[in-house]
């Protein structure tokens, strides 16, 4: 029987989606895929606080049992759904970057082509940076990895992953437009410079970091928002370098972490006593650190809850508070970090100026020199709930000691090997033997 006559009857194309083979053929279409990358970042940060804040000395959760409780106690199971989901979101978004890069030759306008490629590489580099810092040796997705391509499933040694981070971010620094030439929320040159500076600082390449950071500062595109509270509630202010944006009451573009921070929802990310003590030990000139009043709220007399990202949405599950990945005070404080370098402290005038700019905004008296611990504490207070603490400790090499002490203070033991996250079990199970679990799990 021949059915050729019926083939046209039996051919249907999607109406509410597009066939990928027919898409990404011109500038506009590729640009929608670039926006799709940022859509992926919206997912990446939804539960990141559990990994980066709740594991650190900054925050904890009221959830006594289950997946959420495993973070602060360092009892993560390989099946933890938050970790599994985080890994999945990282690589889903990286895949989107690679899809843009694979279609980049279809972009005609050379400026757009350069920009799209740099945006994709920025995000790809940044996400690999997170992956390697949190999981150690991870698959290196510098191309589209198809199902069955077991070579692509393999874990790459950490230094190879870092090499990709370095080259992607460098490409982004060299090719991305500055803040004024690109919409806020898409990667700009300064975002890439900051991220690359963090990379250099981690590898003690202080001069390279300093150059990048002073370039941002000299550019003058950014300034500190006068009122600390306004950074979070007057969104897209002068301080914002790279936000991951959300809007209220929009199922596709709202975030849920604000909801989980509420007392009624388990007080995720409430401030530890250790954190409260830090704020209270250094009151400002008027008796308070303005960051304390913004960041800490009383939750029914039971908890010191998260005061950042408080939603005003109609529906509290659909919060529109932006997550701020990079802001200007980070640049200033990273500059100080670069200046201190391997020393213990600095009284470099420029560094002190930057440091005291941040301090005085919070209502604290200026200091005459900055030590490493002072800087670390300043960053803690400045960036509480902004998912910096873990990476700050890792970058400065203080992670193990700090967490060990913190756990000891609470009378708890933990396995130091658990500073690295477990490779999610589902990834191990599906990798056809190409992944190896981190030690201790």
């Amino acid at each position, binding site marked *: 029987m021949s059915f050729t006559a019926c083939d046209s009857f039996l051919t*249907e194309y*999607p109406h509410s989606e597009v066939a990928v083979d027919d*898409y990404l053929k011109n500038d506009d279409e590729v640009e929608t895929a670039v926006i799709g990358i940022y859509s992926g970042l919206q997912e990446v940060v939804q539960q990141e606080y559990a990994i980066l804040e709740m594991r650190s000395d900054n925050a904890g959760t009221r959830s006594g049992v289950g997946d959420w409780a495993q973070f602060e106690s360092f009892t993560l199971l390989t099946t933890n759904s938050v970790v599994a989901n985080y890994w999945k979101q990282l690589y889903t978004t990286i895949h989107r970057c690679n899809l843009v890069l694979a279609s980049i030759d279809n972009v005609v306008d050379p400026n757009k082509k350069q920009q799209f490629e740099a945006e994709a590489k920025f995000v790809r580099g940044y996400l690999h940076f997170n992956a390697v810092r949190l999981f150690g040796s991870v698959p290196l997705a510098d191309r589209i990895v198809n199902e069955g391509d077991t070579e692509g499933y393999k874990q790459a040694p950490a230094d190879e992953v870092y090499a990709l981070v370095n080259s992607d971010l460098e490409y982004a620094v060299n090719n991305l437009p500055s803040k004024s030439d690109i919409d806020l929320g898409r990667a700009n040159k300064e975002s890439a410079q900051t991220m690359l500076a963090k990379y250099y600082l981690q590898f003690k390449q202080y001069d390279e970091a300093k150059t990048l950071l002073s370039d941002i500062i000299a550019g003058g595109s950014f300034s500190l928002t006068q009122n600390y509270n306004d950074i979070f509630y007057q969104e897209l202010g002068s301080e914002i370098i790279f936000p991951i944006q959300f*809007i209220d009451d929009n199922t596709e573009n709202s975030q849920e972490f604000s909801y989980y921070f509420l007392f009624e929802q388990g007080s995720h990310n409430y401030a530890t006593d250790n954190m409260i003590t830090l704020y209270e030990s250094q009151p400002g000139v008027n008796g308070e650190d303005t960051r304390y009043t913004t960041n800490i709220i009383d939750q029914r007399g039971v908890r010191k809850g998260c005061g950042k990202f408080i939603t005003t949405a109609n529906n509290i599950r659909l919060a529109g508070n932006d997550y701020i990945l990079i802001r200007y005070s980070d640049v200033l404080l990273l500059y100080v970090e670069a200046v201190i370098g391997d020393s213990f402290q600095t009284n470099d005038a420029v560094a002190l100026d930057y440091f005291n700019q941040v301090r005085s905004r919070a209502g604290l008296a200026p200091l005459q020199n900055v030590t490493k611990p002072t800087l670390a504490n300043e960053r803690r207070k400045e960036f509480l709930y902004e998912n910096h603490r873990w990476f700050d400790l890792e970058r400065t090499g203080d992670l193990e000691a700090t967490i060990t002490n913190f756990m000891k203070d609470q009378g708890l033991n933990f396995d130091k090997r658990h500073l690295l996250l477990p490779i999610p079990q589902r990834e191990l199970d599906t990798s056809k033997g190409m992944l190896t679990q981190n030690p201790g799990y």
Partner: protein
Amino acid sequence: MLRMILQKWHLSQIILVMVLASSSVFAQTQVSGTITSQADKLPIPGVSIFIKGTTAGTISDFDGNYSLLASPEDVLVFRYIGMEEQEITVGTQTKISVALAESTEQLQEVVVVGYGTQKKSHLTGAISKVKNEKLDQIPVSRVDDALIGQVSGVNIQQTNPEAGEAPTIQVRGVGSIAAGSGPAVVVDGVLVESDYLASLDMNDVSSVEVLKDASSAAIFGSRGGNGVIMITTKSGVSGETKFNFNSYYGRKWSYQRENFRPTVAENKANIENYIANIDENWPSDLPEDQRAYVLGKANTTLTRMNYMQDILGENPEKDWQDIIFEDGNIQSYSLSASGGSDNTTFNVSGSYLQDDGVLLADKYSKMNVRFKLKSKLTKRLELGLNLNPVREQKQVFPTSLHESLRQSSWLPITHDAHSIQFVDRANFPNIAIGDYAQESHFNNYPDPNDPTKVLPNVSVTNNSNPYANIVERDHKELTHRIYTGMYLKYKVMKGLNFRTSFTATYRDRVRNYYDGTKATRNGAADARLRNRTYRDFNWINDNYFTYNKNINGMHDINATLGMSFERRQTHFTETIGTGFTNDAVKTMNAASTIAYGDEFIGVETLHSVFGRVNYAYNDRYLFSVSVRTDGSSRFGQNYKYGLFPAASFGWRMTEENFMRGVDWVSVLKPRISYGITGNNQGIGMYDALGRMSPSSSVVNGGISSGYVPANIAQPDLRWEQQVELNPGFDYGFWGNRIFGSIEWYRRTSNDLLLTQQIPSVTGFDQRTVNLGKVQNQGFEFEFNIKPIVSDKFKWTLTANASTNENKLIDFGGVDSLITIVDDKRPANWIAATGHPISSFYGYKIDRSKGDNGNVPFEYLNEGFWPIGGTSQMGYVQDLNGDGVIDENDRTIIGSPYPNFIWSITNNFNIGRFDVSFMFQGSMGGQVLNIDPQYYEYQTMQGQRPNTQFFGEMSNVRERILTDDMVQDASFIALRNINVGYSIPNNWVGKVGLNKARIYAAGSNLLYLMADGYTSFNPEGIRDEGPINYGYQRGAAPIPRSFILGINAEF
């Protein structure tokens, strides 16, 4: 279709009679009489009476009367389908009245098969038939609910018995892992959505056939893999217009559990008793400080109990069952008219059904009109029309039952002057009298002994008001559906007919789910409206030839050849609005923000060619071969077409010479069938294609449109394939006083769709592949006996029973997959090869330790908490004996699939009374019942062992699935009972009726659950997909009903 065939036969008789009567011979006498049924003494209209050896004759009128001219030597033949034929020599009689007995030899019975009909005696596959005798008097709102227990091998379970909700139907077990396992539904010969079973009115149904084996179902190709339910609606009968009215009205209520939960007073008494007797109770080997600790905890709990009693005041404690379970009415009205001329017949009916359900806020109603017309346009051409508009309205129970039933008995629904005094004003300053109460309103109660302190919190649940949670949500579903069918049938030549039909169905369903500003603890912040619309337009065009030929009485050939085109279009939209300040207006215009919008349009097409040849040699050897090929737009070029062949063979041994003398055997027919069918469920319309879907992001504060990859292209995707072998035999003894069938089947489902987990580095975490293999095998028995057949008393008994064994053979090369459906609760499944595809997976409690496996409460932090915490935490067995309790000590602890289902139906006719009742049961199925954790021992952190005293944590695991939670879901139900009385004709005649019967009926009036089952409905199962089957959490209770009804014909 059965009726249509009968009808045709009548029509031809009528024509013959009319033509021949005019030329009949005069020298004859007038013979008349009345024809009645031996069973119920009622007149039978339409019996053909003719003189043997001629074609001269007549048919009985609607009172069963006839008269004709006959000579004394003539032999009159009385023939009526389904009745024993009688012959009487006229002789000198002028009045010959006959009581016809039901046919014992059901040779002439016809069953509906795919694209045609077949004599039951010539069937070679496994097909069960149910006639709508009293199915329309079962007080249920759906056709499929009425079919429970009627057919062997078909398991229909009321997994969600909320009003109007669909049951789960499995024909011969679950044959799919990722796709659906529900059967295909065919109405009047045309494939429809299974959802149509909701719209159909049972009063309109004439008969239901279930095609169970592959050889019967293969003619439906990719739709046949899970069996086919074929429904034939009633057709008109020519003659005087007959009206039929059927109506019932009654009450529905639900099974409740007694001693649902101890009251505060009972708990208090227990604790007081414990404290008073602690010296006797306390284990002597435990340290004193532990005793003091436990005593302290007991006293604290006692204080809390006192406080709860304060809150209660004069209000009686609530059993939330009394509030959430709400009895309701069920009522049904149906009026039909049927009649027509010789060339044109019609059946028109209208009905209304309303089912108030047994829960607060569930309700279902439907209005149904059906018009069916058949007309002979010319001698060769016949036209049929079938029109069925339906409107269904449903008030959907808006939450899961456990959310409400878990709430404390002391909680008032709303605050009154008494309860308001106890509100925690620091946290709830604005609560006023009349507001809904929540447990947390009563926290932070000042300690009467020390005003600087507060008492322990009383709230344990998620703090919603159980009543508000239901009544402050308005979830509505409105469905309009129009089924329009027409056909033309052309007689090409004798025995050869061509039929073409076009059937279109349009369904418009709107779901408006409004969650009010008082529904949850978050108030207006949670208020939202979710509107979803589903518009489906499907059409099918079937074209086929049928050919019937009998050569020399030896070769009986019956063939079908055709092709079919089908197009299905679905259009879905969804809008979510938030920002409602009050509940005055519950439509989208009152939302201040549109939070979400979605739309999906999908089209698929199917093209099929099918054929079948049935051949009977000498009425003894029966062969049937069929084949269908389906082409679908869903698939890539490689697998666009699927081929579904089948063959079967049967042997009517009773026709053999060697059986001639064996009179007591009336039917003996071994048969065997083999075939391949497919399953079209579980594959998206465009899964073969790699796609990108819109996904926006926010840039510069505004939404920017983006596209993201949606899936991995899967050009090799294809249908699941079912290969089935089915030997069986039909038997009948003593003139079919006993008859039935026995089947054995083995159905192997190959190329099963699996959601294969893949590494996320590919950009996706799963894809759909054809990899798995599942086998179902079992026996089916159908048994009918008529122990007593007399004029005054008749008893028939029908029993059917089925076994099924489900086994996962291949899981895509993986031995097993452990899955979890509910990350807050320990609910684990394993799909492991060699076992049923859904098995519960967890630990076994070690009952030799602790208090029957539980941690003794003297070690618990809150041993006296009224709803304890035993199940999720216990001593478990170290199954692998490595001295460590870990995940490797888990094992299969149960399976949800029953291995034996059965039913027994008795019918009694005693004079004018008739009684029928069906017992139905299901054995060997289990449920993972999480309900007790909500209703009995709510888990809270405070119930963890106190590590200060408890040193055995290594043997105890928390929050795990144990065999404690796996319960036997077997049941025996008195599914239906119907007692009727036929009012004598001379009475009903006075009010202009031909026939009237009044009846009382009930369903589930008796419902026995297994020992150890501790919830409301062993059939209740959450739909979590085939590999996570058997999860029970908050299922609606089994409804019971009692109705009174009347059935009148005029």
